[in-house]
């Protein structure tokens, strides 16, 4: 690449780079600094407290809960959303026409407000909803959906999967469309049909889509806020208490902004580390199928 091309590249990239500098890098540095203080966002004065905030966070029951709850959400959400999105994508891909229309239709939940969706789910699962009245009347089942520490996270994971499956399905559809027909023909000649073809050809050929979707889904789980905030408030017994709920509670309800920021820094390190692990696993799987 010659110098003038490089300059042109920098020029075109500069708006985003400057945007990132102002809205991501500076706040990140500022937040890292704040994590070592006892500032409460309001007081004009504050003190440098060293690593005290980090030590406190390390021994905090609610921070520990946020750490484990996130992995619990990961374990539920990632398989459901990846499986659901793949299923939707196969469905859309197999349609003879109106693929675009159905893709948009399945994408729509992604645009729905988290608060509105949570209120709707709350209504559906409320004690006197038609659904629960039917369950009680027909099967004698009286289920406390959001009061159970097993069901509440599952419901939030399902709700998030409903919201994101259509979006991720678009990425899978793009992946399916890009698989060359002659790969399938070659596989058929080798005797791969039905589920075998799907398992040994389609899935490995979708590696780039799997990679993107999984990493996006993993990252998403470290930033959940609205759904548990509206539906459960982090309960019952901290079973839906996420990183963002803890940060919000500390920084804005208890005015411990310095401590809240320390938790945010820990959250970003955990997020970065977890994504790195998932990347490595996915890359290993990709390499096994010829993706370098």
């Amino acid at each position, binding site marked *: 690449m010659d110098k003038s091309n490089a300059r042109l590249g920098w020029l075109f990239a*500069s*708006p985003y780079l400057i945007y990132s500098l102002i809205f991501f890098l500076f706040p990140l540095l500022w937040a890292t600094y704040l994590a070592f203080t006892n500032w409460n966002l309001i007081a004009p004065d504050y003190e440098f407290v060293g690593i005290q905030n980090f030590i406190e966070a390390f021994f905090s029951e609610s921070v520990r809960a946020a750490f484990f709850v996130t992995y619990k959400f990961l374990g539920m959400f990632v398989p459901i959303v990846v499986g659901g999105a793949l299923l939707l994508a196969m469905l859309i891909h197999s349609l003879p026409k109106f693929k675009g229309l159905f893709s948009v239709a399945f994408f729509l939940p992604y645009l729905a407000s988290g608060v509105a969706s949570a209120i709707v789910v709350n209504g559906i699962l409320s004690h*006197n909803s038609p659904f629960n009245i039917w369950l009680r009347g027909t099967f004698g089942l009286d289920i406390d959906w959001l009061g159970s520490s097993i069901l509440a996270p599952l419901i939030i994971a399902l709700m998030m999967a409903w919201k994101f499956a259509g979006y991720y399905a678009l990425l899978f559809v793009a992946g399916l469309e890009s698989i060359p027909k002659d790969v399938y023909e070659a596989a058929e000649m080798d005797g791969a049909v039905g589920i075998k073809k799907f398992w040994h050809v389609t899935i490995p050929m979708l590696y780039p889509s799997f990679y993107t979707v999984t990493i996006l889904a993993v990252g998403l789980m470290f930033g959940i*806020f609205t759904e548990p905030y509206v539906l459960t*408030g982090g309960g019952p017994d901290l079973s839906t208490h996420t990183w963002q709920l803890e940060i919000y509670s500390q920084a*804005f309800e208890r005015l411990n902004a310095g401590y809240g920021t320390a938790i945010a820094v820990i959250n970003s390190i955990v997020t970065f580390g977890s994504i790195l692990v998932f990347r490595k696993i996915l890359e290993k799987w990709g390499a096994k199928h010829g993706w370098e």
Partner: protein
Amino acid sequence: MKKFRLVLLLITVGFLAAGCQSGSGNGGGSDGEVEFEFWAAPNPAQEAFWEEMAEKYMEEEDNVSINVTPMPESPSSEAGIQSAIAAGNAPAISENISRGFAAQLAESSGIVPLNEFEGYDELIETREMEETMSSWQFTDDQQFVLPAYSNPMLFSWRTDILEDLGFDEAPRTFEEVVEVGETLKEEEPDKYLWARADLVKPNWSARWFDFFMLYNAASDGNNFVEANELVADEEAGIETFELFSEMAEGDMLLTREATDPFESGDTVMMDTGPWTFSYWDDKFPEMEQGETYELTMPPVPEDSDIENPKTFADTKGLSIYASATEEQQQAAFDFINWVYSNSENDLEWFEQTNLPPARDDLATNEAFTEFLDENPELQPYADNIPNAVPPIDSEQTAEIQELIGTEGLNPVVQGDKDAEQAWEDVMNAIDGVLE
């Protein structure tokens, strides 16, 4: 190369300028004009009221310019205010400030004491709010909030269901509440006494509408925390937890989310604020005071004064921010002084929002008589303003109330602790926070 650098520099400057532009419009004007920002509660009725007041005031005062905007909710109005203070974009004045949040702001010098403004004493006298303000006084004898409205929280009772159960009137004591609950479960096992999902949730603000309604009644309005010291009434606290425990044991509490359970007759009692009535007018016109429901102050333990019980005051008010200039602060105070010096403005507020103005004379002032006659369901709220206790004024309000939930109310309702153990655990945990 020079051209490239120039273009890059221009883009950088453009972005920085756009990013750093202040949108507050909170500065002083020219030619002696004072301009300030007023943040109204994010509620169309309240916003419309303050916009109208600002317009009228600006017609009289040429040198004042007030910009009324709804306060940001991201995700709560408190968080929006904190972010604005941190970013240097706080308004000169805002409403929607609770006593607990004011304590946090005052501790950090984010707001200024109102009693130091010229004209403060006249304002309190003109608006007839000496008694109300006495319960709002902070432990350092300062007044950081001017309460705009005060909702004494009441309980609604389904009198039609009570009659079917053989009760002529709503229960007034804890014992009578349990008796109603027991009869209800015998006659209608699928129904509940009270539906409140928050009873098993740790949300600190939910404690205002369950624990504090009953604790204030049981303790005759005894403070919970004073000057960062725990002064809670032990007997009242245990009695309150015992009531919850008995209701939980008798399966009288529905702690799951439910849609309009009181209105549909699935429950018999409900904590009720005046905002409920416009909803009932729209969706449940069959809810008629005296026919289907009755409003009462919270029940009290046996041997307590049932004639004049206390309750929690859902009350919020106006605060002036320290970040504003002195001219803006005084202009903001003069504006609220002007608004509240005329009871007609309070009447207009009451009509538009249904929220009772925080005045001692609301039930007796003739300015409000006609409106209260037309809206009899609001009369008990007006009558009980002096019996309503505002939230605790500790900067640790959120932590204290969260502990009341997690260490006390939540486990009691879930049957994991008895009342005495729960009270002891709550006290120990709060002591740890206040140390």
